[in-house]
């Protein structure tokens, strides 16, 4: 365990990322409120060097949650989030949500957590002071109450809301009799939980944390500690706070855009047992018996991530022929080569290969996670590329799959069609790359792609993907304004605004919804609030097509001028020259922020090799 002086001297030596790594080790070793406070205190003066995303979180609660706050803030820090937390008054959550003058709304949170427990929300059920008829009525009433509170929040704030289910008691009042009848205590709680889920599902940006399942995962009997409940009104035991904080982190990472898009995996002793170059195809361990079945579980966990839209890549020190033979000829393999978007099978260092993979896949290096059984390789990657999320594995494969499944950086709060189809996009991309490298002229290459785009106003069907693109797109993004589904919805409903979404397809396949333009009309000026395209479609004139569409649409509705900002970030240099390249004039510049203008009396040309299908949606 690193000692505190090592951390302090790393900070004094301005080695900020190393200091953060050491703090993480110290905290993982003993995740106490005291260590969390130590971490937060040390990190405070170096915050600006850590490229943190700020997030304002309000915690409303029916019970004592205070010890979770420093732990949650420390965990968030390790994931690149500067969490600013306000805790609501004890058991005053209804009042805070209903009163538009409350501290909650004055704080202006981006995320609200409502932390409740059964003994506060359903005291009659918890204390066995209810009848079967009561319980049904109570479930309906609790659901209606929650819905009323959600409605109150939505009328005043676009903040995301995280609700939780209510937990079962460790020992039901009626003992095992409780599960013999369908009107028992646990069934009453289950019914309420169904109503909570239904209430959440009716609103955008409202998510359910399954508190009962969380408690079950770590052991109901050990979750709380009667000594602390009876003396300090503390319903959670000392070890439970870090579990609760970690569960909140699973929600905060996707909400703050701090998730990984791709998983880079090692092969030998990670997805099969043994070393194929030495043990041969028949010598590696993979199949029904231990340890082969442990590696099958790892492969199942990786496949589940693939289905969640996580891009997969291979990084292995091997002779390519040996490794590829396993994929082609081993009967027990669940993973196939077509699950992978890129591979690096060679004898170069993993760090070097991972850097190349990030370029190949065209995603930021901080969106990569790395899975390798070898602690030396993990340490090397951690040292040389601290931005990569390195997944720690225990010794021995039995717990590899669980370690991968518990990693929070792959959590998603919604799955778009694009997420589900991501694997096939990358296969089509490899075929396009082959065509381009075959030496045809650029115009001919564009033409041969047979690109078709469809541009239409955002609808209830596309709103999740549009919001996701504003949150995730970093490189080709002129202003990098992040919007929630709720915010997109209110812009789309405003007559002065337009939210257009672009889907693209070519002869190699469907790109899905990959472009967004958000514009705002004031007088005869149309201002481009947001303009972004997914990196997988950049460089194929689709960006020109979308801009041309925006200009035509603005001109046809009587606008005379088109304006747009380029707001620089650490990642969006690729979009810096976009407006001047399309004939815009710069009219203002300060601190690298540039405002451009285009005179709409001139037509902004459409790339003739892109075919347009415009669809005006009735749902606008």
């Amino acid at each position: 365990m690193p000692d505190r002086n090592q951390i302090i001297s790393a900070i004094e030596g301005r080695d900020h990322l190393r200091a953060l790594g050491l703090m993480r080790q110290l905290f993982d070793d003993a995740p106490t409120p005291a260590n969390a406070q130590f971490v937060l205190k040390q990190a405070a003066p170096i915050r600006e060097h850590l490229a943190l995303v700020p997030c304002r979180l309000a915690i409303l609660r029916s019970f004592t949650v205070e010890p979770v706050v420093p732990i949650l803030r420390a965990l968030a820090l390790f994931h690149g989030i500067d969490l600013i937390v306000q805790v609501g008054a004890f058991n005053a959550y209804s009042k805070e949500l209903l009163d538009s003058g409350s501290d909650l709304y004055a704080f202006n949170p981006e995320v609200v957590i409502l932390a409740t427990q059964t003994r506060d929300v359903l005291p009659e059920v918890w204390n066995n002071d209810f009848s079967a008829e009561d319980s049904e009525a109570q479930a309906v009433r609790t659901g209606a109450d929650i819905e009323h509170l959600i409605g109150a929040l939505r009328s005043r704030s676009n903040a995301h809301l995280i609700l939780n289910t209510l937990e079962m008691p460790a020992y039901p009042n009626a003992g095992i009799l409780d599960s013999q009848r369908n009107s028992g205590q646990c069934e009453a709680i289950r019914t309420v939980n169904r109503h909570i889920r239904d209430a959440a599902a009716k609103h955008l940006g409202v998510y359910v944390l399954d508190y009962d399942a969380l408690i079950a995962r770590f052991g109901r009997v050990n979750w709380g500690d009667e000594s602390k409940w009876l003396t300090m009104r503390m319903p959670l035991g000392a070890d439970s706070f870090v579990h609760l904080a970690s569960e909140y982190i699973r929600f905060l990472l996707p909400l703050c855009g701090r998730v990984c898009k791709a998983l880079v995996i090692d092969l030998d002793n990670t997805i099969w047992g043994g070393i194929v170059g030495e043990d041969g195809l028949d010598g590696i361990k993979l199949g029904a018996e231990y340890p082969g079945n442990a590696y099958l579980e790892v492969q199942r966990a990786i496949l589940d991530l693939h289905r969640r839209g996580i891009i997969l890549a291979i990084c292995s020190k091997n002779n390519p022929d040996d490794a590829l033979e396993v994929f082609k000829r081993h009967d027990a393999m669940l993973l196939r080569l077509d699950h992978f978007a890129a591979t690096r099978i060679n004898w170069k260092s993993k760090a070097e290969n991972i850097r190349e993979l990030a370029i190949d896949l065209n995603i930021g290096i901080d969106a990569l996670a790395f899975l390798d059984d070898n602690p030396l390789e993990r340490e090397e990657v951690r040292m040389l590329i601290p931005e990569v999320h390195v997944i720690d594995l225990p010794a021995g494969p039995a717990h590899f799959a669980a370690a991968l499944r518990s990693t929070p950086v792959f959590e998603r709060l919604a799955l778009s069609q694009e997420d589900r189809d991501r694997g096939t996009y990358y296969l089509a991309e490899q075929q396009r790359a082959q065509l381009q490298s075959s030496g045809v002229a650029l115009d001919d290459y564009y033409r041969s792609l047979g690109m078709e785009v469809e541009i239409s106003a955002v609808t209830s069907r596309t709103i999740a993907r549009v919001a996701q693109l504003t949150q995730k797109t970093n490189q080709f993004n002129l202003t990098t304004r992040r919007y929630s589904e709720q915010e997109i919805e209110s812009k789309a409903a405003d007559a002065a605004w337009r939210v257009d979404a672009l889907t693209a397809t070519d002869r190699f396949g469907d790109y899905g919804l990959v472009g967004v333009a958000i514009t705002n009309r004031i007088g005869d000026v149309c201002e481009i609030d947001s303009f972004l395209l997914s990196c997988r479609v950049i460089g194929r004139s689709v960006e020109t097509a979308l801009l041309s569409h925006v200009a035509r649409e603005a001109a046809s509705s009587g606008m005379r001028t088109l304006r747009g900002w380029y707001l620089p970030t650490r990642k969006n240099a690729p979009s810096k020259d976009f407006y001047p390249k399309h004939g815009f004039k710069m009219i203002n510049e300060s601190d690298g922020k540039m405002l451009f203008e285009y005179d709409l009396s001139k037509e902004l040309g459409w790339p003739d090799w892109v075919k347009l299908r415009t669809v005006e949606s009735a749902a606008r």
Partner: protein
Amino acid sequence: MTNDAILEKVRNIVAEVSEVEVARVSLQSSPDNLEEWDSLAQVNIVLSLEQEFGHQFSPEQIESMVSVEKILEVLTAHAA
């Protein structure tokens, strides 16, 4: 762990959760003479000690831990 090492650990925990310099925390410190040692700090002290020392305190122990000295008494009795 020696008694000195335990004292150091307790002083650090009290200082961190109360957000004061460790130099201000002595054997005699208690919620009565250290203003920052409030009820929330007390909860965090108990939780941190339980995890650091791997011991779940009884209600009687929790109620007796009202100064650095009293905390040491509980911890050394448990270690003995």
